[in-house]
């Protein structure tokens, strides 16, 4: 999480209007999921991955590493679609006979599985494009202009800010526990982890009071609004959205009329 966050702040697109980037990734996401086609999924993944590699200055290796995180879930999820039980004698791509039937992959289930994988990876590509190129502060600025209630956005901002503070605190505590052999064996680990979480809750509660005092002393009257960062307009991205979506839909209809 920390890595993605820091990549986003260093992206070449970090200070482009977040609305344009949100539009690009959401429209492509909808197209990708709506079409459920192997080629469209591949196209969307290619475009979003390419854009991410170029603008967020990621190496292909690092990107593939991030892509492999959801891959595990995807494999487990699609396994049952790839592999099913068929009556003996049916023509399969690969299979092993078990008793009177056989377990394996048929041409149809193979295509169906691939389609699902492509769609899912295309969707992941869209979300990665957004998260690798958009600092959270940009999204909050966007949410403030949306019909979302002010208090929800404020809460999101505070939570985002203090995740890092709590994280740091937890990491220090864990190191301190480790230094006193707190994580040797399951029993010790469970006990140490319990103390850590308990202490963290208590400290967070105490910090609340101090944050509130600090906010009050700067004139807090129920709102966390202040100056927003200024963003460069992202006009080109609307064009890119349109072009990619049109190409994807073109492929989709072509594929349909051919098959």
């Amino acid at each position, binding site marked *: 999480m920390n890595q993605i966050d820091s990549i986003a702040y260093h992206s070449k697109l970090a200070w482009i209007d977040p609305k344009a980037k949100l539009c690009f990734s959401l429209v492509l996401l909808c197209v990708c999921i709506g079409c459920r086609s192997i080629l469209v999924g591949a196209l969307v993944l290619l475009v979003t991955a390419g854009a991410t590699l170029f603008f967020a200055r990621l190496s292909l290796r690092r990107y593939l590493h991030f892509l492999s995180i959801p891959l595990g879930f995807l494999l487990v999820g699609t396994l049952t679609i790839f592999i099913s039980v068929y009556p003996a004698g049916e023509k399969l791509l690969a299979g092993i006979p078990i008793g009177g039937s056989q377990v394996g992959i048929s041409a149809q289930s193979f295509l169906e599985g691939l389609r699902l994988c492509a769609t899912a990876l295309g969707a992941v590509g869209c979300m990665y494009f957004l998260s690798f190129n958009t600092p959270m502060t940009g999204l909050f600025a966007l949410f403030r202009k949306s019909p979302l209630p002010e208090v929800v956005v404020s809460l999101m901002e505070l939570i985002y800010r203090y995740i890092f503070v709590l994280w740091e605190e937890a990491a220090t505590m864990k190191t301190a526990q480790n230094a006193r052999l707190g994580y040797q064996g399951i029993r010790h680990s469970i006990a140490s982890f319990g103390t850590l979480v308990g202490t963290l809750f208590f400290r967070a509660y105490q910090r609340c009071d101090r*944050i509130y005092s*600090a906010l009050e002393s700067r004139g807090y009257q129920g709102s966390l609004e202040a100056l927003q960062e200024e963003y460069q307009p992202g006009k080109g991205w609307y064009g890119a959205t349109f072009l990619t979506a049109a190409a994807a839909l073109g492929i989709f209809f072509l594929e349909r009329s051919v098959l």
Partner: protein
Amino acid sequence: MNLIETRGLCYSYQGEKLALDHLDTAIPEGSITAFLGGNGAGKSTYFLNLNGVLTPDEGTVLFRGEPVDYHKKGIAALRRKVGIVFQDPNDQLFSASVLKDVSYGAYNLKLPEDEVKRRVSLAVKQTGIEEYLHAPTHALSFGQKKRVAIAGVLVMDPEVIILDEPTAGLDPSGVSEILNLMQKIKEENRVTFLIATHDIDLVPLYCDYAYVLDHGRVILSGTPKEIFAQKEILRQHHLRLPRISHLMEILSQKDHLSVSPAASTISQARRTIHEMLKEEKSKR
């Protein structure tokens, strides 16, 4: 004239024993005043009373001779004039955007946007945080966060800035940077400073006045020279002399050298040692 005065200030948290026990203080305008005292001496509670975050149980806080009005408007006006920089910048920096955090106080004053921007860019320049204005708060170092916190108070254009443990957790160069920044702000913006500190050595160097608090009471007050002349009382209240003063004390009492025991900074010590050497020479 005294910018801030408290008379018989009492405060207790939820009716427990008094955290502030009839505190009488007077802070002259344009000065840097140090508040010394161990943990739980009441320094932070005192500061929160000055800024209106806490309302005194008894006694009064006077700002420019006027008692503070604890209605909504009076409190808002007080907070504009008295800014607090908290000890842990993580308590103060609530936003992941440095720009947003710095502008927050000015924004709350309902100033026109151009004025907010003008003040932000001034404060950013003064505290030297231009470089990381667009970085996320959590990527900053402790010292950088401290500067951002100071900038966030400066935009409110306060007359008083309270620094709670400004040097805690900083490396030696960070300490002198923050203290020099304080002096620069004092001169350029004519701000009165109140600082709570455990770092006794900085008091003779930077402060015009000092208070020693213990159990919510004023034990000593006066110029650093006057305070450090009362070494027995300081030691009773778990404080010590500045290192240089301690050295001078030992030189004059144990080694019977004729140095001035009142010297508490390096330059003062140097002067008195030079004088002593001159005297020795002329005796011969």
